[in-house]
């Protein structure tokens, strides 16, 4: 039970309960405004009936030719609203818009290799690992999780324009590229 609505510039005044969590970065206002000024239909918010923000997604459309796709830049849910399938609904919207409006071949996203909860969820939504990007999250340095902590999986899900599933591959976890190549 939540309201799904477009992300608005003034939501930046309201997103503290989401963004004070350490896993969510707060960027300069230009970051949000640049997404909204180009792909407002790929940015949406889930809101409780009280008007409190629960989570949001920011996405974009990019790439050329067969690489033209929707990309999930940020997907986040406030700690108190986790485990309510909110991410699922926001992803569904983003996929629908990437498919029907942008006519992309697939949707992709990056996720920390250690984040098994998220990887499981994305796999459940039909995503699969396309490649492993080395040192994508370099800023943290090698922590407890070793390489897995700073490497990312690039996960993809084909859309209706790619009926033959050319944008995915079965052995993606073994395909390793460096962060410069993405």
């Amino acid at each position, binding site marked *: *039970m939540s309201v799904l*609505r477009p992300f608005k510039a003034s939501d930046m005044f309201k997103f503290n309960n989401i963004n004070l969590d*350490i896993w969510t970065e707060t960027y300069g206002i230009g970051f949000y405004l640049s997404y909204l*000024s180009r792909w*407002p239909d790929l940015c949406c918010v889930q809101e409780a009936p009280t008007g409190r923000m629960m989570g949001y997604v920011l996405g974009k459309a990019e790439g050329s030719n067969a690489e033209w796709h929707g990309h999930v830049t940020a997907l986040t849910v406030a700690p108190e609203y986790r485990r309510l399938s909110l991410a699922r609904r926001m992803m569904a919207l983003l996929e629908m818009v990437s498919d029907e409006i942008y006519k992309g071949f697939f949707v992709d996203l990056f996720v920390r290799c250690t984040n098994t909860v998220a990887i499981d969820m994305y796999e459940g939504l039909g995503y699969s690992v396309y490649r492993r990007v080395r040192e994508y999250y370099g800023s943290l340095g090698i922590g407890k999780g070793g390489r897995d902590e700073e490497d990312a999986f690039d996960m993809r899900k084909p859309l209706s324009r790619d009926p033959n599933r050319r944008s995915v591959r079965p052995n993606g976890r073994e395909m390793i590229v460096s962060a410069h190549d993405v």
Partner: protein
Amino acid sequence: MSTAALDRQIRPIYDALDTGSNKSAIVACNKLLKKHPKNELVKALKALALVRSQKVEESLVLCDEVLEEKPTSDAVLTAMMHVLRGLGRHNDMVTMFEEAYKQQPTNEELGVQTFFANVRANHWKSAQQIATRMHKQFQEDRYLYWSVISSVLQAKDASTPKTMRTILYKLAHRMITSSPTPPYLNADRFHLHLSILSELELFDEARKLLDSEVGRNICATSLSCNEVRRELWKRQGLVREEGERAEKLIKEKGDRNWLEFLAVLDATFDCLVISPTDVAPTTLEDAKKECATRVQETRVLFTRVAEEDGSKDRSGLLALLELEKRARDHGVSEEPTRLVDLMERYFNEIGDKVCCFEDLKPYTLLGSDEHCRWIAFLERVPSMFSSIDGLRRFINAYKFLRHSLTSSEITADTESARVALYAKKYMEALPLGSDLPTTELQPADDLVLLAGNTFISLWKLTEDDNNLFKAASLLEFALTKSKQSFLVRLMLIRVYRLLGAPSLALEHYRAMHVKQVQHDTLSHLILSRASTFSLAAMGDLTLATECLESTQIYLSNSQETGDFVVRAFTGEKYSQIPQFILFEDRLENSLQRDTVKVEHLRMRLTHEPITSDIIDMELIELKFIFDRTHHDNRDFDILPSYQPRISPNLNELTLLLGRPEGHGWLSTFLQVYIRAFQQSSDLDDTVEEKLLIGDRPKQTADYDRHLSLRERLCEQNEEYLKTLTSDELAFVHYARALADWLEPYHDYTRPPPAAVLAEAAKQTELKTGHPLKGIDIPPNGASHGQKKDEEPPAVRDPPELVVKHFEKLKMRFEEVQSKSPVDVLHVATLAQEAYLLFIIESLRFKPASVVKVNKLGGLVSSFKCIRTGAISVLKEISSELIKRADFEGTSEGPKCFIGLEELDPDFVLGLSKKVIDARKKVFEGVGKGLGRITATYAS
């Protein structure tokens, strides 16, 4: 030299500018200007480098020279655009582009730039005219849409009279319907078209667009278009149709957007929403019957959804609750136990989710039987928990139980018992999360937050600071277990400020990594009434720096947001443009921004020598602020309040000094300082007008335009004054009395505008080597010491309020000794502020020559009395504070803090030392600062 060669020489200037080496850019420009003294581009680039190195006056000269040439070259215009933006001269930018476009009317790029210049300056009317012209000339659709949205924005602009609005929307409508291409081409054009139709209530036309297949498709894929459609249908009263549409989506598409459920609910009760005047009793009965049937049908729908989804999605269950609640409100519910049945069911299904409490809260206002049943149900929730899910259920039950406490149940004893229980349960629950990585939040955190809330309630009931300390110790302990809990930190920040330990509050604030736009919404946590804790008087600028850092975001806003408005135009994202403008405005005119500005000013005056320079500069800034309508963007909802429904919430309970800061506080302090600065300053309006660089900010404040500034400064708003603490109120009364008393002498002594301007021109010329533009200096410039025709105003004795103020402060200071450290510091810093205000007000009468010429010897001698009295009081306060700081450090100090039994005594002792040190630091710092001020302004 050939153009190519010149180009080659100019390139390094760009490189220097790009890398921020403004100095070398200036050197390179000077070299080139020797050979090409008339080159516009080099001049423009030099002006830019000068602006960027803060050499505003020199830049102005060059800037004006280039503007006079009416440049048309792309490079010059671009460079000048940056110069003018740096100087805040948006209006000149508009003129520059308009002139250029006039000279080259076929240059499309120039047209676009001219349009954008108007957009940046919010000149919607001219923007609309330019876009229309461009559409005619270049035949591009988007120019038509630019012109349409410009009209809409003009209609939305606060400065547009209401009567004009419809006309502007009609104009927009006429233009948009004249478009040769249909609006379906993209969602944003469609959105714009729909919003205009909605505004003009052209429902049939809107219907036609929406019912078309393309229209339907757009609404199905675009949330923002669907939002306008919803709004349109609602305005048209199509509640039932909307309900049917929503029902279909829920049933067939599995849509679980809560908005669809609300639409079904609204439709269910629509038959009861008839204006009461035309309803005979019988028809009301009929309507109720009809409604009861509908409620049945809707219940079937929601029940099916609830069964299908189970605990996967809570929409169905919550919709059933909302349905029952509304049925009750409308008197069509037949089943008295159903609401609690549903609540219990909801709790059973969703109780293991954190949001259960928030979801059910609106339904917990129950009749007494139901209330008992609900409480009994909650009390049966097992308090033994073996899993995290079980723990969450238990916590939710506790939250509801606390939320529904009645006033007789909230006493010091019961709250003590509760807090002990929460703390015990917290300790018991901790092991459940012991395996979680340190980056995760602990599932037991909410129990600590409940305990923290209860300690704070106890503190209010008992006025015993030890309760705050206990809260702090438990919360600090919780942070060792749950390192990332920002909710725990938020509560600690409030607690430490109340304990008079601001440096500890600041530590936690910094640990939250508040950045960017969050400064606007959250800096109140640390900066509200921060001058109470400021040690700036003795050179510790921690809080003053925090003020400045928190205001960076407003600079980013003014530099960046406009660019994105322009980008949204380029990308034709019309749905975003009004929202970007609103966002920009809310930040630009943020209440917190200007509250921090005033706090910073209060700190600054204790630190920097008070001179006419500071006074003039601050005066101009404060006057701009005074003309603004402020938006309150502060986030208080973020504080985790688990207080009983009937009690004040956590924010209200933990406000520093028990009073909220807000519009009233800001406005009152602005009045005080503007009035004092205005009296002390030589700048009157005519002088200010000539010396001002950049555009005057828009006056957005809503006030009676017949009033003069002086009248507005003297206005007393009782509502506003009520928001001040009693000590602040006394300060304001003192400030008023002081200003009223000294006004005639200031007015008599202040040099005439011509003399002030002459002096300013002289200074500028000394500094830049160029005369000040637009100012004619009379040959025999009037000087300070000139003879006046009229006699000086008779010297009157100072008013009682001024004379007695410091004595009263001394008494008040003794009175608050027994109270919290914050009260002590509040009185002390306000005493200091009162004295500094007196210094500001008497600054003009310092030079002996001024006193002599204006025959104000009598006045000045009464200053001496006030000063001596004030200084002796301040010195006493200062030494008392230092004494108190020493006392805090002695063995008698720490005794007052007793921690919780559950915690390690060493941990508690360590914390109590930290709190005491922090208190000691602030007492000592404020005390010494006061001492320093009495020395600086001893005579």
